[in-house]
């Protein structure tokens, strides 16, 4: 699994490539912790067009941080989830709690 980071003033983007499972989710956890400890972009964009698979370990990383995002008023957006991954978000009910978009245009529409 590969993570790529892009830091801009207001949007911090983490791109995920590959499978997010009990082996690889540890590095995602570290990446999000680093984001929270660093410069304060108000939006965390998870770029997921190359995310092939997610298990509870990956979902659990996001779930563990949701309250902190809310208290720090950080916007969390998922971009480009494929149908299989989106289905898993729906099974767990996470799609009701986070913003999921399909295009960069939709991301721009959300940003202030």
């Amino acid at each position, binding site marked *: 699994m590969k993570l790529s980071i892009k830091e801009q003033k207001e949007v911090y983007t983490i791109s995920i490539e590959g499978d997010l499972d*009990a082996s690889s989710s540890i590095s995602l956890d570290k990446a999000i912790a680093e984001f929270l400890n660093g410069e304060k972009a108000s939006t965390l964009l998870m770029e997921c067009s190359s995310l092939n698979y997610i298990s509870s370990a990956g979902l659990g990383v996001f779930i563990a941080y949701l309250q902190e995002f809310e208290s720090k008023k950080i916007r969390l957006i998922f971009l480009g989830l494929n149908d299989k991954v989106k289905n898993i978000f729906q099974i*767990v009910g996470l799609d009701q709690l986070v913003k999921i978009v399909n295009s960069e245009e939709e991301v721009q529409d959300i940003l202030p």
Partner: protein
Amino acid sequence: MNYYYKAVCSRESLKQIREFVKTALQDFSLTEIAINQIILAVDEVCANLIIHANRCNPQAYIEVNIEKQQEEVVFEIVDKGLPFLDYTNYQSPELTNLIQQGKKGGLGLLIVQKIMDHIEFVSKPEENIWRISKKII
């Protein structure tokens, strides 16, 4: 038709287990989304066994058996570690509770329960068996 795979108890084995299950399920008439759900359910059980029951011990292993029956596919996952929970009395957590508690764990079995039609856990002196199945017709 039966399929069998033996995996060392390391987190890195999970990808190989998923590939094994995906290959076996190609013989079934299932959609990509259904295949992914079943792969996920097996992954969740195996991850719990590897991480919690066997504490990622590279000397330990788990065995995954797949059997296609008339109307369902049955997975039997066998290990020799400590049973990591008493499934007979298990209540899945609510997602909202997990979020409030900021917990990362507890989600795996919730997912298995939502995806699979039947879940059974048998603990014997010499081994533990998770039996999970899904109707495919």
